[in-house]
Structures are given as structure tokens and as C-alpha cells.
């Protein structure tokens, strides 16, 4: 009797949790459904199209779903003070001397390039150079470090 009752009640709780969980993430665009949106962006990147811009929401989506590698185009000094969590640093001015890092960039994964904020050009130039080097799936996050930081998204520093 106890076990039958417990099984019935557990089944009800699991069904309710499935319904609530998927409804909530569908409405808010979080979790499971965020990955669907990110997958669409990743698909665009994987086709090898030329670099194209993404906004903060798309950058965050790729970050949340681990769908992209963030590439910081700023000077090492700025990068060391703070950068998007898990980003790698390829300063535009050091592009030629960083060939080893560039060769190690994952193929088939979206690269999100950023610099300080929307007024800087190094992200655009670095994205173009990466594309010329045959790396597809490059996205440019124009909002950059300032936009990311102002929205209190995950960061880290190397100091």
C-alpha cells in the first residue's frame, strides 16, 4: 500500500516538474530552450560564413550553453585586468606572433571576438584576419567588454 501510494505520488510530482520546467524555460528562453536558440547561431557559424555581428543576448546565450570560445582582441594589459570568463587573448597588434595560439583555436566551434566597446575596431579587424586564415564561424560581439561588464555577466582577471 505504502509503495503503491508513493509510486503514484512520485509519478505525479515528476509529471508536474516536467510540465513546469519546460514551460518555464520555454517562456523565459532559459536553459533547454536557450540551447535551441544558440544552436541556430552555432549552425550559422559552422557553415563558414563571413564574420557577422551578434548582440549581448546572443553572446550570453553562446556563453551559457558553452557554444563558443570568446576571443579578447584587447591589449594583454587590459585582458589581465579583467575579461569575459574563459576568454583567450589574441591582441590584434600581436596577431602574427600569436600563430601558435591561433592554430590551437578549436575548429567547428563559434569564436566570439570582442574588444573594449562598440567604438573600438580591433574586434572587427581580428575577426577579418581570422577569417582570412580560414577560420569560419567567427562572430563579433560589438558591445564588447564594457557591455558584458555593465550587465554583470561572468568575468575573471589574471592578476
Amino acid at each position: 500500500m505504502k509503495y503503491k501510494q508513493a509510486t503514484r505520488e512520485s509519478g505525479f510530482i515528476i509529471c508536474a516538474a516536467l510540465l513546469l520546467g519546460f514551460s518555464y524555460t520555454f517562456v523565459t528562453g532559459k536553459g533547454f530552450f536557450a540551447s535551441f536558440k544558440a544552436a541556430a547561431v552555432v549552425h550559422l557559424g559552422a557553415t563558414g560564413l563571413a564574420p557577422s555581428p551578434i548582440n549581448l543576448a546572443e553572446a550570453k546565450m553562446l556563453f551559457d550553453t558553452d557554444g563558443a570560445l570568446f576571443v579578447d582582441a584587447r591589449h594583454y594589459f587590459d585582458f589581465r585586468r579583467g575579461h569575459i570568463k574563459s576568454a583567450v587573448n589574441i591582441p590584434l597588434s600581436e596577431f602574427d606572433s600569436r600563430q601558435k595560439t591561433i592554430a590551437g583555436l578549436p575548429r567547428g566551434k563559434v569564436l566570439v571576438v570582442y574588444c573594449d566597446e562598440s567604438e573600438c575596431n580591433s574586434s572587427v579587424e581580428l575577426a577579418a584576419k581570422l577569417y582570412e586564415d580560414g577560420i569560419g564561424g567567427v562572430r563579433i560581439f560589438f558591445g564588447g567588454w564594457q557591455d558584458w561588464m555593465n550587465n554583470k555577466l561572468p568575468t575573471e582577471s589574471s592578476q
Partner: protein
Amino acid sequence: MIRRILSNQYIILALRILLGLTFVFASIDKISDPSTFAKAITNYKLISGSLSLMVATVLPWIELLCGLAVLSGMYLRGGALLLCLMLSAFTLAVITGLIRGLDISCGCFTLDPDVNKIGWQKVFENLGLILASVVLFYSESKHFLLNVDSN
């Protein structure tokens, strides 16, 4: 002795409040940010990223509903059974993580990566909660329940 514990209304009420509040509070952070919770699950390196995202979408809601179930007394046995199963799975995950030498956040009560690292203390905490959920499952107290009839 065991029968006395199982039918003692105050012990059962205390355990219900302990387990219920623990899981209600543990679920809130995870519900609000399932992607970060999915990362915490992926850190255990037991399941793939897409599966962990699906787990992170549903599991916090099971925790919340089970917490409410044992707090209110509605679906007390079902809630206690699920809590026991979930806690056993969490404990196994933590133990395998410790054996493999992982230095990761537990992802249990908060998603802050700098606090609540996995450790043997977490295993013993979980074992205590498992014991509490087993006691609730077999409890015979009919006091302070929202639906006395189902017990």
C-alpha cells in the same frame, strides 16, 4: 524504538521542516538560472552537456515540488521517496567526483562556483538527509498534514 520515532509527531514534523525547507531553498537558485546549473552538472563529467541541460531544466522543479510535498504533507510518501532517490544519486556523484580528484563546486544549494566545494562533509550531510527521507517515507504520524486521508 523505531516505531516510536516513526509515530512521534514532533520528530516527524521537525524532519519535514528540515527536508522541505532545504530543498525549497536549494531549488530557487537553480530554477532561476538553469544554464549555470547545467554547467555545475557538466563539471562532474558524468553526463553530456545537452543531457545535463535537460536535467537542469527539470531537476530543480522536482526538488521544489518534493520540498513543498514534505512540508505540506500532501504527497509526503512520494516526495520522501523521490528525495531519497535524488539524494542517493547526488551522493554517488559527489563520491565519484572525490575519488577522481575533481575540485569542483557542489552545485547543491548555491550556484556560486567559489563556495560549497564537494568534499566528504557533503557526503555525510547527504547521508543524514537520506536517513531523514527514509524516516519520513515510513512515518506513521498523521499530525500537521494537509491531507490526512492519503496517509
